[in-house]
């Protein structure tokens, strides 16, 4: 059940990159949200190296070494490395554990030798299949939980996941521009699955004395955003994706209600809303994650970040070194600019530049600029009677903000899509139980394998 009923910040103007109301410390002298922004580098192994544990561990050792070397070559004060699990690292818990341990050994070395601050996030792969199995009791769940333990035991400082509850429904509805089903899949089913999942992640983290990090709506809101794509794409309306993002905020919040402490996951674009509500530090990714995907809010999304990430880069050579070193350097300078602004006392001005770069570039950036994100956060806490109510309120608030700002331009099709979705959202039942029963009827028929029991329903 929803818990948050107030905002961590008195206004959006208080929110700034580098500082969170509730900073988190772990790893090697590493504090997130304590006044400065650090890079979070996410390396991805080359295809083929996943074939054995030995080759994969070795691949990670090389990548991590390149990252740490570049930090000490150019003076980056500290860095978090995310071990974003490829399937094989989660399916075989000892692989994830050994890679965390190898990363920790290297980080320890550089901390001892140079004083380089560092930390490790282990993001376990959620490979449960909600339309094929009992996701509350499956081999996949078992492996996921074991891998969390192995990672924590191995040396991960922060445990995170991109959980997939409700994806079977949102996959079906996002490509059909069905906002009702998307609200159901993310806001209701996603939230309920997170509650189930995060109780257990937090227990494991507490047992191993590590930090439960966060979750992201990668499997749903990012699907909508990536499909919406650039200006010329015609896959999913951008306005529809923006509504999806607002819903995602209400859903990803559940991790913190269950005890997660942050920093949140980089690809959770909804995290700025969550920071406004919870005060946890957040990881964000923008222009320097172009290596992983294109987006329309490359600067704006950094406005309130505490970690700044590249999302994912595959390990290869470039003229300037390996990709992981190259992106460490770019991220390092990005955050150096932010930290220089902090030291100069001009951080609010830099934030305003970031915001003005993208606020009116596209609807996604528009709803995530600090003032709008704050408003969506308020809609969430003011409707905390159910996961459904707050998700719906978030979407309606986002939609109204988009419709009411005359500077935000939209092609006709995009505006039609938004208005149509808003009509649907406003016509939905008030009570969660009514909404659930309505959706249950509809989607059980349409989506093969959809099973309410997976969500305790």
């Amino acid at each position, binding site marked *: 059940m929803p818990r948050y009923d107030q905002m961590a910040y008195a206004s959006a103007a208080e929110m700034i990159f580098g500082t969170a109301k509730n900073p988190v410390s772990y790893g090697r002298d590493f504090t997130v949200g304590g006044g400065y922004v650090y890079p979070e580098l996410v390396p*991805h*192994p*080359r*295809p*083929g*190296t*996943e*074939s054995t544990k030995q080759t994969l561990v070795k691949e990670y050792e090389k990548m991590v070494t390149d990252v740490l070397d570049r930090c000490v070559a150019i003076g980056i004060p500290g860095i978090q490395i995310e071990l974003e699990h*490829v*399937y*094989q690292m989660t*399916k075989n818990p000892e692989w994830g554990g050994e890679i965390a341990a190898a990363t920790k050994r290297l980080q320890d070395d550089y901390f001892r030798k140079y004083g380089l601050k560092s930390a490790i996030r282990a993001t376990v792969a959620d*490979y*449960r*299949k909600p339309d*094929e199995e009992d996701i509350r009791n499956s081999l996949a769940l078992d492996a996921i939980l074991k891998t969390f333990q192995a990672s924590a035991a191995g040396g991960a400082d922060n445990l995170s996941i991109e959980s*997939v509850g409700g994806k079977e429904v949102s*996959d*079906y509805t996002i*490509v*059909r*521009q069905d906002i009702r089903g998307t609200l159901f899949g993310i806001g209701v089913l996603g939230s309920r699955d997170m509650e189930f999942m995060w109780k257990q992640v937090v227990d494991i983290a507490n047992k191993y004395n590590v930090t439960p990090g966060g979750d992201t709506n990668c*499997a749903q809101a990012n*699907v909508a955003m990536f*499909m919406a794509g650039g*200006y*010329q794409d*015609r*896959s*999913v*309306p951008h306005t529809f994706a923006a509504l999806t993002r607002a819903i995602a905020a209400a859903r990803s919040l559940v991790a913190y209600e269950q005890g997660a402490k942050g920093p949140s996951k980089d690809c959770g674009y909804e995290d700025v809303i969550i920071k406004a509500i919870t005060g946890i530090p957040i990881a964000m990714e923008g222009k320097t994650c172009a290596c992983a995907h294109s987006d329309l809010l490359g600067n704006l999304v950094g406005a309130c970040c505490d970690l700044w990430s590249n999302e994912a880069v*595959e390990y290869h050579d470039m003229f300037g070194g390996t990709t992981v070193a190259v992106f460490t350097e770019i991220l390092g300078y990005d955050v150096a600019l932010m930290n220089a602004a902090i030291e100069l006392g001009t951080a*609010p*001005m830099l934030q*305003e530049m970031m915001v*003005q*770069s*993208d606020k*009116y*570039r596209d609807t996604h950036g528009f709803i995530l600029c600090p003032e709008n994100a704050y408003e969506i956060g308020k809609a969430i806490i003011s409707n905390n009677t159910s996961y459904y109510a707050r998700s719906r309120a978030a979407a309606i608030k986002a939609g109204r903000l988009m419709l009411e700002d005359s500077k935000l*331009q939209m*092609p*006709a*099709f*995009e505006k039609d*899509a938004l208005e149509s979705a808003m009509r649907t959202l406003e016509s939905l039942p008030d009570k969660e139980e009514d909404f659930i029963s309505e959706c249950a009827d509809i989607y059980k028929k349409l989506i093969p394998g959809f099973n309410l029991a997976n969500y305790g329903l």
Partner: protein
Amino acid sequence: MATVANYANIFVRYDLIGAGEAKGARVSSKDAALQKVLQCVIEGDVDNIETVVVEALESKDPMTIINDGLIKGMNEVSRLWDEGVYYLPQAIVASDAMLTGIEICEEKLGKAIEKKGTVVTHTAEGDIHDLGQKIVNALLRANGYEVIDLGKDVPVDDVVAAVKKHQPVMVTGTALMTTTMTAFERISKRLSKDGFTLPFVCGGGAVSLEYVTGFELGVYGKDASQASGMANDAVNGMSWGQLREKWNS
């Protein structure tokens, strides 16, 4: 703090260029019952398609409804999508409507209509992200193909076995992660070894042209919307090499 008076030097809204010029549907039928079928498909009205098709069957034979209503409507939807008037969702819901309509007509016919050919689709072992594959399935079906949907997280053996069993014109593979896409090369080797020469279209997430064109049979699928065009080429006798030449260079 100051505000920005002019954003044109920060970004340009290229999405607004030509917006609003788009024209609506151009096809219609003089027959009232067929017109309703057409309209249901073009509007992706899955709630009413059953009613209008059943109604049309009272005065028309099933093949007429299929050809002059359902397929004609779907072709118009494809045109609208190609021209940027429609987005993908409109194509998908139109396809839903069309397929529902065809099913009703087939029941009346007492047999399934002939398909253009069979395509086997799958998502790589270890990958549970099958949305790309589902879109491919919908678009192929909308274009008259029989789709053998092997689902997600499919072992190499199962893909090879399905190709042997169904003798498709094309097989597709979707992967979000590079560490699961390595299965594609193994599939290609197995198929080649067994003498198959059909195109193996691979796409999704991290899959790249460089990778896919690195093994035999491989054709890179940049976008789900290319699937039917590729299947058409395969049916028309193009080899995997010719497909690669046409779509990947």
